């Protein structure tokens, strides 16, 4: 079985995000970019399935700017076999919407015919939590979101999902879309020899036009602002002072 793993290039999760003073978005110039942490978990899961003999080939896909090559090289160094880059924007600040991404992935899935598509449950930049669900709808495939356990058994898979009330286990027919949550696995670091090897693995470059997909946004961002901040309060000396403050000053207990 072939697995498709879409990966997004996002601001590194350790970097402090700065909103541009003119309200025109978040500053991404000269900022450290990395693979979306959830997508790393998706890549790792695909590799584990390959190591277990369930998967024969892992195709990593990225949609965005030319620099997404680096993200794909990371996926290849971790263990993906080949990569497809769809260059859909020139400016790193252009975020391709999940609907357009899902349409491109649908076209790629129709060409590649994977048995499983593993995606991160959300990207830590736009926090939309949508691409997997949208892709599943467009393909008419089964959908298992927020996975913390995945077992592929022939023509079905059993997925444990992290939901508000706890955990839910469902069984999905293959081909399936699975979006992964943080506790599914701990992604490996690529070793130096594997990073070297990844440079020689195939990476195809495409454009949205190759797939006949219009990536024009449906949403216009009219403003990006800093959230209303909160100031640090006081340091209390001991538990007695804390209780007194909560009772008398804040009135919350």
């Amino acid at each position: 079985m072939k697995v498709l793993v879409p990966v997004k290039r996002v601001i590194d999760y350790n970097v402090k995000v700065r909103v541009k003073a003119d309200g025109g978005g978040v500053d991404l110039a000269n900022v450290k970019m990395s693979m979306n942490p959830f997508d790393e978990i998706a890549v790792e899961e695909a590799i584990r399935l390959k190591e277990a003999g369930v998967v024969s080939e892992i195709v990593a896909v990225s949609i965005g700017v030319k620099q997404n090559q680096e993200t794909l090289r990371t996926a290849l160094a971790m263990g993906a076999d080949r990569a497809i880059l769809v260059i859909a924007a020139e400016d790193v600040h252009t975020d391709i919407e999940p609907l357009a991404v899902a349409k491109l992935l649908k076209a790629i899935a129709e060409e590649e015919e994977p048995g499983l598509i593993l995606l991160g449950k959300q990207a830590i930049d736009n926090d939309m939590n949508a691409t997997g669900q949208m892709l599943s709808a467009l393909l008419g495939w089964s959908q298992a979101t927020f996975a913390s356990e995945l077992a592929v058994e022939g023509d079905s898979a059993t997925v444990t999902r992290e939901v508000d009330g706890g955990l839910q286990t469902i069984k999905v027919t293959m081909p399936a879309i699975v979006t992964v949550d943080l506790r599914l696995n701990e992604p490996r670091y690529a070793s130096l020899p594997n990073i070297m090897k990844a440079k020689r693995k195939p990476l195809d470059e495409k454009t949205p036009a190759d797939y006949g997909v219009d990536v024009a946004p449906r949403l216009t961002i009219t403003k990006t602002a800093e959230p209303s901040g909160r100031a640090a309060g006081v340091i209390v000396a001991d538990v007695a002072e804390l209780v007194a403050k909560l009772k008398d000053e804040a009135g919350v207990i």
Partner: protein
Amino acid sequence: MAVLLLAEINGGELSADQTGKAVTAAKSLGDVTVLCASAGCADAAAAAAKLDGVAAVLCADDAAYGNGLAEPIADLIVSLAGDFDHIVAPATSNGKNILPRVAALLDVMVISDVTGIVSADTFERPIYAGNAVQTVQSADAKKVISIRTSGFDAAAETGSASVTSVDAAGDPGLSSWVEDKVQASDRPELTSAKVIVSGGRGVGSEENFAIIEQLADKLGAAVGASRAAVDSGFAPNDWQVGQTGKVVAPELYIAIGISGAIQHLAGMKDSKVIVAINKDEEAPIFQVADYGLVADLFDAVPALNDALG
């Protein structure tokens, strides 16, 4: 303008809190019709009909809707969508599972985690774990939006909307339910609690988490946790607060042995009063805390328990 709002139903029971808060947010958009989709949805529909701001309730009663599976419920919503300009749900794990699927089937872009409604087509939502707030205007014919409920008031329950049954839309049979692992608890729900006591990696073990729970019970609070505490097995996943867990805004949030990573702050920084107990005076949690106590939690929390009598 008319709004179709997917009710939050778990195990046949309406979450009046999550559904009602979404109704509060959505009623400025037009008449709100609440859709209850469940296996045996009469009770949930009756409860939804009482929520203030609800104009009508639709009840879709079918076994296929009993466990929140995305495919059949999305198909149901699409079958009803013709009459509505806005399709709304609370941004619960159910809402986040189902709404993007609905949006794609309607060929519109979903707008997730809306914290503010500016007008019928313009919405505010946090991005980058709440480090920025974006205002977006949708050019789509229908708007499909999930509401981050923590910023909206619960609806009073004095209404009396009419309930109508609607036909099920069939089950594509793509997935099936196996089991739910839900912990029964007498404590308030995290997302509606007035007080939350949360523990982090500093608590050290599942056994030690008992002191967090003891304090919570003394305060009638819900218990929360950081990702590190959940990952380490100290606490179940549904206690996680943050960018990828629950977003809460109680009157009082007490963070114990939590450093205050941006991803954790994303889930609790709109709390009215924040207390931090941490032995490291440099911990970033103190930058957002109204009251900070620099202390070993194993001294401070038992002392706090005693002080509260």
